[in-house]
Structure formats: structure tokens, C-alpha cells
């Protein structure tokens, strides 16, 4: 792909499985599929432990995105759809997952997934997704106590960041680091609308601002925008961030600075929180079902 046609917003898709685990030796194989507006993830658990996952872009067709994500997670594992004991669908396209046994909202799934990823001390989870942003307060079991969502506006979402990566011809994966490479923090661009922010950024570039400085101004605006959402609910410690933007150090560092809090870090991929939560729900539901049958 030439520089002119390169899609700077396009992040790397990937799959992973734990070769040390054998799916034949387990009692329960549960799965979760998170069909988001921008990305889809599938997670497979063996007796509640992470075995495999995939992360890819959501296409124009939710059912196919769910199938593709699950097939990719199962690649080279020897598993087929028939081996999954229970599957929960979540995310924007959760009602369109053809092979799911139940649909559960991404709010409950992120709380449950976040509880596993960051531990039971996490009380506030900020999910910065592709086209929405959610603040979730949860208890020590990962049960939702309070949530607030903004899915009407692209400001403060991953899609907004993709728009900026494309505008500035900077790879989406480099945005965070580049935005931190400025001598002085510039004032934030418009934080209320991505369309206005994009026009403002074009003017700043014409005025001679460097790409790094414009990125810093946008990351700062995004952090500021999300802080106002967090403040509406009230941040309780410990605090963690999930979703694609959690991988953008430019937003995370500025967010932590504004909140005067450090977010928890995890060994898990931050984008799989929803699918992981869904797979944990699936495990609990299949066990509940078995108990009922045994009675």
C-alpha cells in the first residue's frame, strides 16, 4: 500500500491461544463474543481460565463478524463451534450473534471482565470503545453498581482518534507516544465534537503547529472530555481503563494527570474485557444449567 492510500487508522488484528493448555481435559468450555461498533473480540475459557482470543475489525455484517472472530480464536486449537458448551454474545451487535446462547449487555460484561483482569479491588472501569464511552462502577464481585454511557457523540471515542490518525497521516498505534513528545502541553482542541475538532486541527496545521503538538491537543481534549463523564458518576478507587484507547498512552497519561489517579495495569489485552466478561457469564450460566438438570 502506498503512503497515499495507507489507512493510518487501521490497527493490527491478532489472535492468540495458550499452547500449554489442552481443551480435551476440561469440564467446561465457555466462550464470549463482543461485537462492538468498530472491533469484535472472541474469548474462549477452559474451566474459567483464559485459553484463546481474537481481536479484529467489525465488518458491515454483525453475524459474520461474530463468526469470523470466533473462528479465528479457535484457529489451530482443534476446537469447533460444537465444542463450546455455552456462548454469550455482548456489545453493540450482541443480538446478532447466531451461535450465542444468551445476550448480555456490554456494561455487565465489562464489569465482570474488568474484575478478572484487574482484580477485585477495581471499583471504577472506564471503557473507551470504538463509538462509545462507558463509566462503570462495580463491587468486589464485578457486579455493576452504577453506569453512565455516552454513545451519541464520537468525541471521547476510538473512532474520533482514528479520524485524527487519518487526518495527520500518523499510524493509530503511534499516536499516544508521539503526542507525549512535546516540550509544552498545548491547549486542548474542541472537546465537544470530532467534526469541529478536525476543522480546528486543520487550522492549527496551517498555522504551523507540528503533528505531535496537534495530537497532544487532541489527546488532551479527549482526556478532558472523558473526565467530565467520570466526574458525573464519581471515580472510586481502584480505577482501570478498558477498550482500545487504553492502549493510547497519550490519552491515559493525560487522563491520570487530570484525575490525579494512576490506573491499574493488567497482563491481559485491554480490548478483550467485554468478551472475557461474556465468557465468564457463559461459564456461570452453563454451571447453573447443569445444577438444574442434576436436581
Amino acid at each position: 500500500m502506498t503512503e497515499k492510500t495507507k489507512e493510518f487508522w487501521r490497527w493490527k488484528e491478532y489472535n492468540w491461544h495458550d499452547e500449554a493448555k489442552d481443551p480435551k481435559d476440561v469440564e467446561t468450555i465457555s466462550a464470549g463474543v463482543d461485537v462492538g461498533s468498530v472491533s469484535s473480540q472472541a474469548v474462549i475459557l477452559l474451566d474459567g481460565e483464559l485459553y484463546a482470543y481474537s481481536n479484529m475489525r467489525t465488518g458491515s455484517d454483525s453475524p459474520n463478524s461474530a463468526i469470523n472472530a470466533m473462528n479465528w480464536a479457535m484457529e489451530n486449537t482443534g476446537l469447533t463451534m460444537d465444542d463450546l458448551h455455552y456462548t454469550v454474545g455482548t456489545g453493540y451487535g450482541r443480538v446478532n450473534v447466531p451461535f450465542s446462547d444468551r445476550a448480555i449487555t456490554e456494561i455487565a460484561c465489562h464489569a465482570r471482565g474488568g474484575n478478572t483482569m484487574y482484580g477485585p479491588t477495581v471499583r471504577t472501569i472506564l471503557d473507551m470503545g470504538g463509538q462509545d464511552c462507558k463509566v462503570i462502577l462495580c463491587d468486589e464481585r464485578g457486579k455493576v453498581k452504577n453506569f453512565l454511557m455516552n454513545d451519541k457523540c464520537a468525541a471521547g471515542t476510538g473512532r474520533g482518534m482514528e479520524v485524527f490518525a487519518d487526518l495527520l497521516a500518523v499510524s493509530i498505534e503511534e499516536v499516544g507516544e508521539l503526542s507525549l513528545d512535546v516540550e509544552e502541553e498545548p491547549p486542548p482542541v474542541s472537546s465537544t465534537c470530532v467534526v469541529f475538532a478536525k476543522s480546528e486541527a486543520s487550522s492549527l496545521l496551517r498555522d504551523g503547529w507540528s503533528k505531535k503538538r496537534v495530537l497532544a491537543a487532541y489527546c488532551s481534549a479527549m482526556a478532558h472530555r472523558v473526565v467530565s463523564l467520570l466526574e458525573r458518576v464519581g471515580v472510586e478507587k481502584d480505577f482501570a481503563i478498558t477498550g482500545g484507547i487504553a492502549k493510547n498512552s497519550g490519552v491515559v497519561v493525560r487522563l491520570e494527570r487530570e484525575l490525579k489517579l494512576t490506573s491499574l495495569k493488567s497482563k491481559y489485552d485491554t480490548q478483550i474485557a467485554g468478551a472475557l466478561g461474556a465468557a465468564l457469564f457463559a461459564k456461570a450460566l452453563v454451571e447453573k444449567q447443569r445444577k438444574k438438570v442434576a436436581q
Partner: protein
Amino acid sequence: MKANYGYMDGSGEFYITIDTDLCIECADHGCVKACPAGMFEIIVDDYDDEVAAIKEDHRKKIKYDCGPCKPVNDRPTLPCVAGCTLGALTHSW
């Protein structure tokens, strides 16, 4: 659980908060009957409890759907808030 339905945009914050822990105790579902715009529904949530929620197709336009109940002057108690005898409902604006 406190469920906030609505949005934040350039013009402000528009959220209806439902304390669903109180909904579990509710028998008459007064909010559903009281709202002239028919915005409320009773759903089974992710934890298998019957609770009130704002219907999906109203969530991104509550500022406008709630408008007729919110005159600028002499604002009466909102019908949904009055209808909820357990006090589970609040509006942010």
C-alpha cells in the same frame, strides 16, 4: 444498580437515572403508566431482575422527548417522578 440513560453532547448533559435496586421491590410500575411519551419499559436485566429502563429508541433524544413535561416556567413535578412511588427516578436537567 444506578442506571443512567441519556447522553452528554455540546448542548449539555441529559440523563435519567433509575435506581434499579428499588425497582426490584416495585409492583405497580408507575413510571411506565405515567410517562406521556411512553419512554419507560420493564425489562429483565443482566442479573435476571425485573427493572424499569428507558426504551432504546428514546435514549438518544430524551432531551426532546421529555421536553413537553419540562416547561421553562412553573414546572410541575414530572409525571414519571411522581408516578414512581419508591423514588427511584431522577433527571439531571
